[in-house]
C-alpha cells in the first residue's frame, strides 16, 4: 500500500478503533452509546454557538500540536508544552496588565513576543540539559511542568492575586486583547484561530524550505551523521526545543489574549498534553495537525454535553490514550488493515 495513504489511514483507523472501544466502555457503565455520541456531536456542532466554541477550543490545540509535532520532527519529545504554555501566559499576563498606554498595534505583538520568548526559554532549559548532559527531555520537561504549575499557583495566590474566589491575575489591558472575529451570543471568537493557521504555515515552510529545517531534521534523524556534516548537534537540539516552546508559548498567548484575558489555573488545563495526541494523529504534518486539533477540540467541546447525560468527560482522555497507543504501535493497525484486505 502507498506510504502516504498509510500515513493518513493509520491515525484514522486508530481513531475508529478507539471509538469502538469506548462504545464498549459506555455500554459497560449502562449508558446508550448512540445517545452519548449524539450528545457529543450536538455539543460540538449542534449550533452556531457550539461550532464557535469548537473553533475556540481548537485554536490552542493547533498550536500545542505544532509545538509537539515540531519537536518530533527534530527528534525531541517535548512533553513540556503544558509548562511552556503556562509560563508564557503567566509572564505575559504579568506585563500585559500594564500595557494600557500602548496602542494595540504595539501591545498585541509585544505581548505575543513575551509569551513566545518565555515559552522558548523555558523549553530551551530542557534542550540545553539534553545537549550538555544527555538528560532525557521527557523527564526534565515533565519536572518543568510541575515547577511551572506550582510557580503559577504561587503567583496567582500571592503577588498577582486579585479578588476572591478562584485565584487569578488581574485582567490584561484592552489594548493587548486580540480582536474579535465573530460574536455568537455570549461567545466571542477571537483572531487566535488565524494566528494558529499562520503558525502552521510557518512550521511547514521552516521544516521543508529552510536550512534550519534541514539541520534540525538531520539532527533528529541521525545526530552522528549531522555532526559529521558540520551541523552542530547541541545548538540544534536547543533550537528545536526553543522553537517548540515558542509555539507552546504562543498557545498560552492566544488563550490569554483571546479567551480568558487574565491568567488563571484553567488556562492551560491539559492542552499541552493534548498536543501529544494531536501531533501523533496529525503525523507531525502541519495540515494533519490542524485536522487533528479540530477533532480533539470537537471531542473536548462535545464532552461537556455528554457529561449531562451521565457519561463522564474523561471518556475523551481514554479515547486519546488509545489513539496514541495505536499510533505508537502502528504495526497493530497495519496488521489489522492487511488482514482485512486479505480477507476480501
Amino acid at each position: 500500500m502507498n506510504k502516504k495513504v498509510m500515513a493518513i489511514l493509520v491515525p484514522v483507523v486508530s481513531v475508529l478503533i478507539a471509538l469502538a472501544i469506548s462504545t464498549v466502555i459506555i455500554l459497560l457503565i449502562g449508558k446508550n452509546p448512540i445517545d452519548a455520541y449524539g450528545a457529543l456531536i450536538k455539543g460540538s456542532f449542534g449550533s452556531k454557538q457550539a461550532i464557535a466554541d469548537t473553533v475556540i477550543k481548537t485554536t490552542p490545540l493547533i498550536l500545542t500540536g505544532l509545538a509537539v509535532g515540531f519537536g518530533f520532527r527534530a527528534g525531541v519529545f517535548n512533553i513540556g508544552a503544558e509548562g511552556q504554555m503556562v509560563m508564557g501566559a503567566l509572564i505575559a499576563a504579568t506585563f500585559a496588565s500594564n500595557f494600557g498606554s500602548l496602542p494595540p498595534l504595539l501591545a498585541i505583538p509585544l505581548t505575543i513576543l513575551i509569551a513566545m520568548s518565555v515559552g522558548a526559554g523555558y523549553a530551551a532549559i530542557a534542550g540545553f540539559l539534553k545537549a550538555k548532559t544527555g538528560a532525557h527531555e521527557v523527564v526534565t520537561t515533565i519536572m518543568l511542568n510541575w515547577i511551572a504549575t506550582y510557580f503559577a499557583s504561587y503567583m496567582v495566590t500571592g503577588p498577582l492575586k486579585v479578588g476572591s474566589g478562584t485565584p487569578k491575575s488581574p485582567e490584561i489591558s484592552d489594548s493587548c486583547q486580540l480582536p474579535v472575529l465573530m460574536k455568537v451570543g455570549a461567545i466571542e471568537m477571537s483572531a487566535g484561530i488565524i494566528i494558529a493557521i499562520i503558525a502552521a504555515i510557518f512550521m511547514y515552510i521552516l521544516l521543508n524550505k529552510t536550512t534550519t529545517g534541514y539541520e534540525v531534521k538531520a539532527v533528529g534523524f541521525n545526530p552522528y551523521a549531522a555532526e559529521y556534516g558540520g551541523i552542530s548537534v547541541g545548538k540544534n537540539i536547543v533550537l528545536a526545543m526553543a522553537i517548540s516552546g515558542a509555539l507552546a508559548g504562543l498557545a498560552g498567548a492566544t488563550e490569554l489574549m483571546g479567551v480568558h484575558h487574565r491568567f488563571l489555573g484553567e488556562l492551560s488545563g491539559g492542552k499541552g498534553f493534548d498536543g501529544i495526541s494531536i501531533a501523533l494523529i496529525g503525523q507531525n504534518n502541519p495540515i494533519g495537525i490542524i485536522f487533528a486539533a479540530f477533532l480533539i477540540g470537537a471531542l473536548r467541546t462535545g464532552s461537556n454535553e455528554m457529561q449531562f447525560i451521565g457519561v463522564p468527560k474523561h471518556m475523551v482522555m481514554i479515547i486519546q490514550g488509545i489513539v496514541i497507543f495505536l499510533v505508537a504501535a502502528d504495526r497493530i493497525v497495519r496488521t489489522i488493515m492487511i488482514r482485512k484486505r486479505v480477507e476480501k
Partner: protein
Amino acid sequence: MRVLEAIFLVFINPLFYKITLTAATPLIFASLGGVYSEITGVVNIALEGIMLLGAFTSVVFTWLTGNVWIGVFMAVVSGVALAWFHAWGSIKWAGNQVVLGTALILIAQGITGFLMEPIFGKPGQTDFVGKVEELRIPGLADIPFLGKIIGETSPFVYMAFAAVAFSWWLIYKTKLGLRMRSVGENPEAADTLGINVYGIRYFGVLMSGVWAGLAGAYLSVGEVGHFRELMSGGRGFIALAAMILGNYNPVGAMLASLLFGASSAFANQMQSSSLIHVSATVKPLFDMIPFILTIIVVAGFVGKSHVPKADGVPYEKEA
C-alpha cells in the same frame, strides 16, 4: 539565623526521618519497577499511570470488600494488567516505548477519572474507605529516637525495604537475573544462546506493574485512605529519576528514593516550623523542591550511570 536554627531543629526531629521513609516508600516501589523493566531493555514511563491505577483500584476494592489487603492485592493485579499493555505494545509490536508510556498514563488518568462517578457517585475525590494501620513493633518502638522512626510505621515501609533486598538477590544472584541483564544489554547474544528474549522482557515489564501497583496502593490505602484524581502527582517520574541516579540497581534506586523522600520531608517540616512563619501563599514554592532536585539529579548523573545498552530498543528477530 532563625532559618538555620529551624533547619537544625528539623534534622534532630525523628519525625523528619519518619516522613522521609514514608515519602520514599512509593518512590522505592516505583523505582524498583523501573529497574525491572529497564534492565531487560524496556523503557517504562508508564509507571506514573500504573501507580495512579493502583491507587484507584485499591480504594475501589477496599470499599467493596472492607478489607484493605484485598484492595492492595487488586492494585497489584491492575498494575500488572496495565503493564501488560505496555509489554504488548513495546515487545510484540515494537512500538515507541516512550510514546506508549505516555498513552498509558493518559488512559490511566482517563479510566480513574471516568469511573469516579459511576462507582462513587461524585468526581474528584472519594470518601475515606479505610487504610492500612501502622505496625508497632514491640521492643523496637521503645528505643529512643530510632523507635520513633521505624518502631511504629506503615507496613509498606518494611515491605519496601524487603522488596529491595529481594530484588537485589533476584537480579544479581540468580540465573533469571543474569538473563534479565543480558537481555537488556545484548538481546541478540541472549537469543543465540536460546534465551527467550521476549519472555524475559515480558517478565521485567509485568514485574514493574507489580511494584508500581504497590506504590499506588500505598498512596491511597497505605497513606490517606481515599483516592483523589491525579494523586500520583508526578511521583512516577521522580521514581524514574531515582532509578537513573541509582544506576539501574535496586539498592541505588532505594538510596536515591530516600534522597527524594528526604527533600519532601524537609520541605514539609520547614513549612510547619514554628520558628519561621511560612505563609500559605509560599507553600507552592516548597512543593517545587523535589521537582527541581530531580532535574538537577537527572542532569548531573545521567551521563555517569550505565544505561542498559538495549534500553528502549525493540528486539526484532529476522525472518
